[in-house]
């Protein structure tokens, strides 16, 4: 007991503990809201289990189908892009920059993927790398703009990225429609060789849209972790993020690093666009409004403590809440509950200073 208390009180463990505590508190709050509004909190957990593991708890022992795997596939389909936008936000944040523009960078990546995937006719082994890199580059270029403006003219990146989100939405809508074969809501199908979807994965998940994009996500996670933790570049980015004055004193190119960081951040978001177009849909879409992947990315990064592994875990968590929504609605539970939970988790994470100091008081408390 004493050991456990000291573990909780040790500041070194707080990086891991605080998100976990925030998640527990978020769920508790969600459950309380459910109880007050006369819902059964068990429904929430049943829905989550079904969404993530495909197990219909109610059907166990009734002879009806217990294992429905399609939902699991769809769960991952949603998780993939938000992990990527999460990495995007987290990467910029490590350099002390706030990238609100993952949405726009995603859209640019999506457009580049669509355009390349439709116009080029090459074998898959060549075309897929081209499509993936093209999407990353387009997102990266879009991210570089606010980075450059920040470095050159000290314009705040938040303002620029927000504006660029709208610009990207309208620009890509216009461009998508210009691609031969497009109608007013979507483009033609991408070349078969450009697609990340696969018959095998589809069959495995009883016809979900699950696709090979997960490999891109894994590679992106590794790249993020590698740059931040193993390279001198990552060391510089962190130094700039923590203390730009000291970074300058040590001869680091603070401005250039900021611009580069935004470009790399944009590339991660661009990959989310790749995954959506070449994986989930297989065609480009003309959108009436942003879909919110960029904002989900902010939540993912925040809960994940701006690390690679954290972004993956929080992406899986937020994804599960999202995937549980339709199932809960099917049981007559309002989907707003999951939104309350994810929002309150974010609020609790934001209260980390307070949680941390309460934890510290546990030590030696008599």
């Amino acid at each position: 007991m004493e050991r456990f208390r000291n573990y909780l009180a040790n500041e070194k463990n707080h990086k891991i503990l605080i998100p976990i505590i925030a998640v527990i508190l978020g769920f508790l709050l969600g459950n309380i809201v459910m109880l007050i509004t006369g819902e059964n909190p068990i429904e929430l957990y049943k829905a989550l289990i079904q969404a993530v593991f495909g197990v219909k708890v109610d059907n166990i022992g009734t002879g009806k189908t217990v294992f429905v795997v399609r939902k699991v596939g769809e769960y991952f389909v949603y998780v993939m892009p938000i992990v990527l936008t999460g990495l995007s936000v987290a990467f910029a944040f490590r350099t002390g920059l706030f990238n609100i523009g993952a949405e726009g960078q995603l859209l640019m990546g999506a457009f580049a993927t669509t355009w390349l995937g439709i116009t080029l006719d090459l074998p898959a082994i060549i075309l897929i790398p081209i499509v993936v890199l093209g999407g990353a580059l387009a997102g990266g270029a879009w991210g570089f703009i606010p980075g450059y403006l920040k470095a050159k003219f000290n314009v705040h990146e938040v303002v620029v990225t927000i504006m660029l989100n709208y610009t990207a939405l309208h620009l890509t809508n216009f461009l998508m429609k210009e691609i031969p074969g497009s109608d007013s809501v979507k483009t033609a199908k991408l070349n078969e060789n450009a697609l990340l979807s696969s018959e095998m994965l589809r069959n495995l998940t009883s016809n979900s849209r699950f696709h090979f994009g997960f490999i891109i996500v894994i590679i992106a996670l590794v790249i993020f972790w590698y740059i931040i933790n193993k390279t001198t570049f990552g060391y510089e980015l962190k130094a700039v993020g923590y203390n730009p004055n000291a970074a300058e004193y040590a001869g680091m190119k603070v401005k250039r690093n900021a611009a580069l960081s935004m470009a790399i951040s944009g590339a991660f978001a661009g990959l989310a666009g790749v995954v959506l177009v070449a994986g989930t849909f297989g065609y480009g879409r003309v959108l009436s409004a942003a879909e919110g992947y960029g904002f989900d990315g902010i939540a993912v990064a925040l809960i994940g403590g701006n690390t690679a592994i954290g972004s993956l875990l929080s992406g899986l968590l937020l994804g599960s809440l999202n995937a549980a929504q339709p199932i809960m609605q099917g049981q007559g539970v309002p989907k707003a509950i999951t939104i309350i939970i994810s929002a309150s988790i974010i609020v609790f994470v934001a209260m980390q200073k307070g949680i941390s100091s309460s934890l510290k008081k546990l030590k030696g408390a008599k």
Partner: protein
Amino acid sequence: MEYVIEMLNITKEFPGIKANDNVTLRVKKGEIHALLGENGAGKSTLMSVLFGLYQPEEGIIKVRGKEVAITNPNIANEHGIGMVHQHFKLVENFTVTENIILGMEPKKSFGRIDIAKASKKVKEISERYGLSVDPNSKIEDITVGMQQRVEILKMLYRDAEILIFDEPTAVLTPQEIHELMKIMKELVSEGKSIVLITHKLKEIKEVSDKCTVLRKGRYIGTVDVKDTTEEQMAEMMVGREVSFQVDKEEANPTDVVLSIKNLNVINNRKLQAVKNLSIDVKRGEIMCVAGIDGNGQSEFIEAITGLRKIESGSIMLNGKEISGMTIRNRTLEGIGHIPEDRHKHGLVLDFTLEENMALQTYYKEPLSKNGLINFEERNKVSERLIEEFDVRSGQGSETKARSMSGGNQQKVIIAREMDLSPEVLIAAQPTRGLDVGAIEYIHKRLVEERDSGKAVLLISLEMEEVLNVADKIAVLYEGEIVGMVDADKTDENELGLMMAGSKRGEVS
């Protein structure tokens, strides 16, 4: 006589270290009680416990004889305890007044803040104690010395009765220190009580009544200051005899390594901070730029190191013009820099000790190769420097710089810069906040650098250090060098006069 403060058997642990181990401190009303100890001995920690920033694992605190639980600084304030921290806690882009009233703003109707009234009160207190602080200037525009005074004002504004000063004199000029001592004496004569942390034994002798000594977290003893010599106090804290004299041979200056001609630099307020300054620094000598804080020292250093653009003039290192170079290239050419403000420039506080040790060399072999960090080598360097410079912390290389004691943070910077063994080491207040033992060591190392044929450009506000360590002294007054003297041919008086600008000495 009764004690206003009694801290009995206080124990406070941090990961890997007992910062306070069964420490007792008793302060009487109306006394100045000095707290002495090596870097990392636990002085700041003990005072943070008293101020409610940390909760001790063991021990009790009594204020005016009554046991109290001080769980946060607001409660400390209620008990009339105020603290000036070792590292100021000011909002950079707020004005002096805004900083002082933060948390207890005087209100007008509709909850508007009555800045004018606050400003007036700040001005009054400032005048009463001769602090001459302009209530309306922004913190980022005033010198470190002035910021210190703002912290003092902040405490006085809150009518504190028990005043904790954590190394208040580390950043002040001798004159300012003298004034502060006067203020402190005045405060105690008004019935306030003071706990004073300082590494300067002279100050303890000058103002305090009692002195409590800590060593490695443990209580060593409390002595009557008037019956104890400086040497005895030093021995009590370090556990061995300390030499106050710097051992050095005569300098053997050879060729000029750093040559500055007609340098002009403008400060943040667009005023000319360095005026047409020319100076030559030779290999094998320690050149000291002395002067009262705010006479252009900071801008001068920043111009050489590249943190600030120059208006005109030339800076030659080994015959090469460096004034147009990037900071990195200047470092590579052989400029080393122990910065004046360790938290702003010297350290990345959220990095570990090891990461901070690598700040100037991380991009070179052996610390990295092809952009990949070599963690093993980095750790080796860090461990070696920790050993060499006796850097004390809870968790060694792994310790976050933020959690280290002020003096040990300073040692990290010094170790890192000295290890570069630069052609010219620019050392701005290198021993600020160090204990006498550490100062002895750093001074020895500076002399060693000199003797190995390197040049040292020392910027110091401290008369004793200037006279003890330097070979040559250039006195800076309002951005100009008003005199150049040999250290062994001058004294405190003459320097003081020159620093005040009253005597334009003979330029040798």
